[in-house]
């Protein structure tokens, strides 16, 4: 067998949608988990389904992985209907499920080799070693999975997902429950995979993760997609552009701005002036400088996905995680 590495992804067709979802519905007796969503994922991009817990992200991904049957609608991966043709595409897909747990008493090198053989890939020891090195587990390759840290276990899961050189990776909340250091390391790994041309469907409820990694984001809430676009486009469209913060300006500063017809908000002693587009920031700063306002500091703040969420979903952040 030819040497296999985790290099660039195979070509799947220029302009081809790797994933196509049309009017997808998953209904249970007491809840509609997915409510008529439509999206597509292009080859080589990181597509993120972002939403609070219970938004329908995992249900959507599990339908695409062939693990659940949809109630209505169409879900295609590589042009195959996942309900009837998943067997034909499964070796082109790598899966890291939500709350992935490895087999406790297998070592990473054994687990990766085993997983490859379940896809009919006769993975050599060298190939296993390369994959393990790719995910940064080389020095833990002979440790029982039982003794790996949470971050190392997720890395092992990604190594198992990579074993057949899949064109498409499903990473379902890959960093949930990890410490900040381990999350950053996994972000680096996912970024490397994207650069090598993998198509990645990433679900997350971390706003910063989606903002950092995704080319395209679909924000889900109550089973529906409520917004769709690149992180910067979403922020531009829904986040309110840039905010100029007049720290310590207080009630006097706020009233001075209002008297001159400048729309502002006051929170505590800080006054906020929202500027819709980047080109308007400089003129507005010049205008504010001309007004005599007592303040301790002045700075600008770009809107983030969190602002988009507050506007679209009404969700709030709790320790960096979206709460329903």
């Amino acid at each position: 067998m030819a040497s296999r590495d985790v290099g660039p992804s195979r070509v799947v067709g220029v302009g081809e949608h790797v994933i196509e979802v049309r009017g997808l519905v998953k209904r249970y007796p007491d809840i509609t988990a997915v409510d008529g969503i439509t999206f597509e994922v292009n080859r080589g991009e990181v597509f993120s389904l972002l939403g609070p817990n219970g938004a329908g992200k995992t249900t959507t991904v599990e339908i695409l992985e062939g693990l659940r049957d949809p109630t209505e609608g169409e879900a295609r991966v590589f042009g195959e209907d996942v309900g009837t043709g998943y067997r034909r595409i499964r070796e082109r897909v790598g899966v890291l499920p939500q709350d992935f747990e490895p087999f406790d008493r297998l070592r990473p090198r054994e687990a990766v080799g085993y997983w490859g053989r379940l896809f009919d890939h006769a993975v050599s020891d060298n190939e296993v070693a390369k994959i393990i090195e790719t995910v940064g587990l080389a020095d833990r390759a002979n440790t029982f999975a039982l003794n790996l840290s949470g971050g190392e276990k997720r890395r092992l899961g990604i190594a198992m997902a990579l074993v057949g050189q899949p064109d498409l990776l499903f990473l379902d909340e890959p960093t949930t429950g990890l410490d900040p250091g381990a999350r950053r390391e996994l972000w680096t790994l996912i970024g490397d995979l994207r650069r090598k041309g993998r198509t990645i469907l990433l679900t997350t409820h971390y706003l910063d993760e989606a903002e950092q990694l995704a080319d395209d984001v679909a924000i889900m809430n109550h089973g529906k997609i409520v917004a769709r676009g690149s992180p910067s486009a979403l922020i531009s469209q829904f986040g309110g552009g840039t905010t100029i913060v007049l720290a310590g300006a207080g009630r006097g500063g706020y009233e001075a701005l209002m008297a001159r017809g400048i729309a502002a908000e006051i929170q505590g002693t800080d006054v906020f002036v929202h500027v819709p587009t980047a080109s308007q920031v400089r003129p507005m700063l010049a205008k504010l400088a001309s007004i005599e306002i007592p303040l301790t500091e002045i700075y600008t703040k770009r809107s983030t996905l969190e602002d988009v969420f507050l506007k679209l979903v009404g969700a709030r952040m709790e320790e960096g995680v979206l709460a329903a």
Partner: protein
Amino acid sequence: MKRILADVTAFGRQYLRSRVGTFFALAFPVILILLFGSIFSSSGSPRVPLAVQDMDMSDASRGFVQALNNTTLTTYQAIPPTANFQAYMRQHSINVALQIPSGFQATLVQAEMGNTSARVNVTLAGDPTQSSFGIAYSAVAAVANGFNLKIANATEVVSVGETPFTVQQFGYIDFFLPGIIGFTILTTPMFGMTSICAEYRTRRFFKLLATTKLSKAEWLAAKVVFYVLLLFLSVAIMMLVGIGVFGMKAGLTPVAVLLIVAGAFEFTSLGMVLGIFVRDPGTGEALANAIGFPMMFLAGSFFPIDSMPSFLQTIARALPLTYINEGLRATMVLANDATAFTYLLVTLGFAVVFFAVGARGLSWKSK
């Protein structure tokens, strides 16, 4: 086939690295053999301790006690003639005791001299429902009968001879070991598979496997292959202990080997059927216990089915383990391969049904 072998290898590594699994599959049956074999085999028939209060202290009463000893059914323990018989039994937790009254020898002498009304009673005290009481009663009755024959100057007309009904002269261990093999065929795959199904469901391994090319039938086949290999290892160890420690003579026959393979197939599949209903390790263990423990006792692993009440025998005939136990004894001890082969077919029938139900009923996916 490659996927099955890959799963056998990975699963085998995990299993053999688990001390609990290895203990119950390999060490526990050996402990049972050593325990029961020591109790029933090494000293021949078990002797019942029989306490005797000899109130007569004569040559005749001592002769009676000596005759009891010669039966090899009882061991002698003396109760002082001055002690209160029943109080002494209670104080010393004696289960069975014999009291020889004073005047015992004098009565025998009168009888020998032709006094047809001479009578003497020896008293056997104890719990008649206990098997030890029955053994002691048989011994005492046999000795008393011998004394009566001698006094009457009679000869024994009807006597009992012994001849082995098996091909070779077998001991207790030869009858016991097939039951332990059956017990292991039941417990190792069935209990194992039930808990595996519970673990795979709660830890989402089934979902993970569902994303691979491995089918449920292949996964189950891999477990069958692994448990067949494990059971052969276990049986080999049991045979070595049986032969080395207890001089066991029964050996594995071709039909016995096929029964072990079919049994592993059957109970691995049954474990998967039970796995359909378990949602967590706790319920898995409870369900396996609820099915497994009654079966191991009712199916003749430890006690002969023929000694059970008729309604329990009817139940036993419906249990899959019965045909493995009876089949193994038929071929290993009685050299009755025709019966064993019939039981092999019954076992295969159960196995195919369980496999089909398990492979179809156990879902790896979500609703």
